[in-house]
């Protein structure tokens, strides 16, 4: 159908048709696309909507059948055993792993773009490996390393594991930003009496900041989300995804739904807030210009 329609549109564009005939051809596409889009969105959003709705379920042990509306789960999130501790662990691990991975990854990205040194392309390639390798392999490999080295598994080992795979993503994200940065800007900074440190903090860093922030958000999301590598290297420590996975066997408490929904809502609020400020800044600039 799309091919035929494409042909019709092409011929309509070629020859100066009366506008009415053209509108008739478009009407098929004009309702099909919205319906298709709506179906796709519903499909994508159903699990989230389900999680959100069931965070208000007056559940007992398991949270599968609807037993009535309540706000208790939201007001007493930490009632369920260990869910808040697991959530706290996830936040702690995410923040530490993000900070370390972003700092290291940014430095690596600058070095890879700006300097010519031995094994530069080899390093570039190796940094891709953690992204390409299946997580099971990474997790298992790291676990046996820790075992071999006699390291006690816990929060520390989880953080190390997360830093490892986050660095790759940071390097890739920041690298794109560094290569789009005009080297003449830094040269201008040096020319205008900026010492190397001043040039970095006043010119390079602010210009890379959008890339660095994007990399940090990505790192945090990946770390917060990770289950496979974490479960191999966590020992007795529990993170939020691990908690959900374990409790799935005997029924996930509604409090987990509350936390998941809250994280989702927080992310939505952040995105919308960012869009609104960006739009208002654009408006202000165009008004000036």
């Amino acid at each position, binding site marked *: 159908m799309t091919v035929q329609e494409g042909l019709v549109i092409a011929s309509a564009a070629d020859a100066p048709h009366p506008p009415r005939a053209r509108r008739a051809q478009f009407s098929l596409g004009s309702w099909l696309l919205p319906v298709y889009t709506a179906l796709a969105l519903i499909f994508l959003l159903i699990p989230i909507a389900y999680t959100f709705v069931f965070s208000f379920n007056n559940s007992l042990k398991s949270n599968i059948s609807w037993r009535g509306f309540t706000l208790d789960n939201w007001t007493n999130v930490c009632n369920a055993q260990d869910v808040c501790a697991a959530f706290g662990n996830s936040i702690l691990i995410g923040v530490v792993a993000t900070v370390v991975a972003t700092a290291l990854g940014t430095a690596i990205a600058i070095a890879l773009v700006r300097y010519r040194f031995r094994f530069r392309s080899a390093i570039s390639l190796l940094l891709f490996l953690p992204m390409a390798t299946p997580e099971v392999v990474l997790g298992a490999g790291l676990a046996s390393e820790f075992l071999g080295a006699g390291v006690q598994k816990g929060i520390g080992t989880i953080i190390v594991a997360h830093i490892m795979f986050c660095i790759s993503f940071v390097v890739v994200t920041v690298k794109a930003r560094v290569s789009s940065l*005009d080297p*003449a*800007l830094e*040269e*201008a*900074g*040096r*020319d*205008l*009496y*900026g*010492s190397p440190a*001043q040039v970095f903090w*006043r*010119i390079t860093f*602010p*210009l890379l900041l959008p890339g660095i922030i994007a990399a940090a958000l990505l790192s945090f999301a990946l770390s917060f989300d990770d289950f496979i590598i974490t479960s191999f290297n966590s020992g007795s420590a529990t993170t939020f995804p691990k908690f959900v996975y374990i409790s799935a066997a005997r029924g996930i408490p509604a409090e987990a739904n509350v936390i998941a929904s809250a994280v989702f809502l927080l992310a939505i609020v952040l995105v919308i807030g960012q869009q609104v400020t960006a739009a208002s800044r654009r408006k202000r*600039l165009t008004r*000036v*210009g």
Partner: protein
Amino acid sequence: MATAAFAEAGADLELVGVHKRFPGFTAIEDLSLTIPAGSFFALLGPSGCGKTTTLRLVAGLEEATAGRILIGGKDVTDTKPFQRPVNTVFQSYALFPHMSIIENVAFGLRRRRIADATAKAHEALSLVELDHLATRRPSQLSGGQQQRVALARAIVNRPALLLLDEPLGALDLKLRRQMQLELKSIQEEVGLTFLHVTHDQEEAMTMADTVAVMNKGQIEQLGAPEVLYELPRTAFVANFLGQSNLFTGPVADTTADSISVNIAGSKIVVPRARAKRHSGQVTIGVRPEKLSLHLTAPEKTAETNVLGPGRVIDVSFSGVSSQYIVAVPGLGSIIVFAQNMGAGPMAPEGAETWVSWKVEHGFGLEDEASAAPRFTADDDTATIAVQKKRALMSELEEA
């Protein structure tokens, strides 16, 4: 850190035996150059001739492989760019996109902890007539305005030496003229030493006191614009700075004050003082506007050279003057510029013509005849003529 004081006046720039090698090629070979304080010096050359590398060496953005660089008598070869009393106006302007215009201009002053940075930055912006845009971002300015900000950002620091890297390249003709004037008046006002790098011969000639024509990492000729134009030393200079008709032949006769060269059977005379070589194969040149076009064979006297007869193969009329290309058998084509004194061009296409010029207008080149076309393919006289014709046509279309 640099001292928190302005340079009192421009400083001499001295390059002594500077070499710059990049992996795989040599950009600059044994370059020695002295630019006196307060002068406006232009380095002119085609792209890839090493002029921008020279500029970056002076700014400290590249390290010389060998040789010394002195600014105001002080050896700065081993110092970092931020330690040199030099500022650059970059080709791409390189304004900091995350700062406002005023912050851009004050950047250098702040780094050197100079008092009243903001007030001084406003002053510099007023000089380029952009103070009313101080709070904007660079992206909100037009190309010409950005260029003036880049200029203000450099001169606000009162460097002893100001480097300009083709700063007018991106501007349209009218803005270019304005900026050229502005640069000139700023130089007269603040008395800095300017080192200007460009591939635009007109820009170099109108602005600079001294022009150095660079080719393949070396300076071919250096001097005042009039001297370079009237008496080019090499075929490269003769063709890069304006156009030239060049003829090569063996020396036939020499007298105390002139030499004559046999060019395809005709004897062409050039004053001895204007010829660099006096024996063997010699290349004689003459500028197209110095030639006269004749429809009948002119009388050959001791003061004139005559070539011809030839046929006019192309005429391009451009109002004030016309350009004729005359094909002379055995010589190739000769370009003639002539004022349109009468109505329309003075010779139609296909007409039989002679060209003549005064002996004193010819010049003899230093180059070996064989080495004469140093830049071969696209710069023989015919191609230049075609390019000129196209340029004229597009200009006429715009008007």
